[in-house]
C-alpha cells in the first residue's frame, strides 16, 4: 500500500485556471513537502509543513498557496495558473523524530497549463 499518494496524476488546465493538487500520507509523518521538477532545475521546494495548520515557504513559492488540513493531507493551490507552472509536482513526507530521516515521495502529478 503506497504511503504517499497524489491526485490527480495528470491535469490539464488553461491559463488563469484554478487547480488544486492533493497529497495524502499514511506514514504518520509530521513533515510534508511540495516540490516541482523541471528539466535543468532538478527538484525545487515550493512549500512545506510541519503539521496540521503549519505552513512554511520554500524556495519557489510565487504563484502557489498551500494548506495542511490534517497530519495526512497537504494541498497545493494554483489560483491563477500560468504556463510557467507546467511541471511535474512531487509531494513528500518525512519523520522528524530522528532528525533528517528519509523523504518518501508520492508518484507525482503532471500539470499542463495551456
Amino acid at each position, binding site marked *: 500500500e503506497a504511503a504517499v499518494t497524489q491526485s490527480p496524476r495528470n491535469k490539464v488546465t488553461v491559463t488563469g485556471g484554478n487547480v488544486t493538487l492533493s497529497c495524502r500520507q499514511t506514514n504518520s509523518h509530521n513533515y510534508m513537502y511540495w*516540490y516541482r521538477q523541471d528539466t535543468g532545475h532538478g527538484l525545487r*521546494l515550493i512549500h512545506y509543513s510541519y503539521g496540521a495548520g503549519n505552513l512554511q515557504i520554500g524556495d519557489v513559492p510565487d504563484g502557489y498557496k498551500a494548506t495542511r488540513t490534517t497530519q495526512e493531507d497537504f494541498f497545493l493551490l494554483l489560483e491563477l495558473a500560468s504556463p510557467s507552472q507546467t511541471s511535474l509536482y512531487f509531494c513528500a513526507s518525512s519523520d522528524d523524530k530522528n*532528525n533528517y530521516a528519509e523523504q518518501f515521495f508520492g*508518484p507525482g502529478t503532471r500539470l499542463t497549463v495551456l
Partner: protein
Amino acid sequence: GQQVKQSSPSLTVQEGGILILNCDYENDMFDYFAWYKKYPDNSPTLLISVRSNVDKREDGRFTVFLNKSGKHFSLHITASQPEDTAVYLCAAGADTGYQNFYFGKGTSLTVIP
C-alpha cells in the same frame, strides 16, 4: 544562488566500472547529506545518506564521502550494473528548526552492458 550543485549533468560508464558522482554545496551549516535515485516516470527514492559527524558511509556497492572543509560530497558506485541507470539527485540540509532540504539538478547515469 543554487545551494547544491551537481557538476555533471550526465555520465556514461561500462558495466562493471567504478563511477563517482559529485555534489558541492554552499551553506557550511548543512549537516545532512543524501543521494536519491530516480528512474524515469518514477519518484525519487533515498539511496544513501550521512550526517556531518562522519566523513564516509558505505552500503554495499554505494559509498558516500563527505568533505566538509571543501563543502563537497560524492557518491561512489562500484561494479556498476545496467539497473543503476537512473538520475541521481544529491540533497543537503541543515537543522534550522525546520527540516528543509536542497536538491541538486541531478546527474543522469547510463550504464552500458
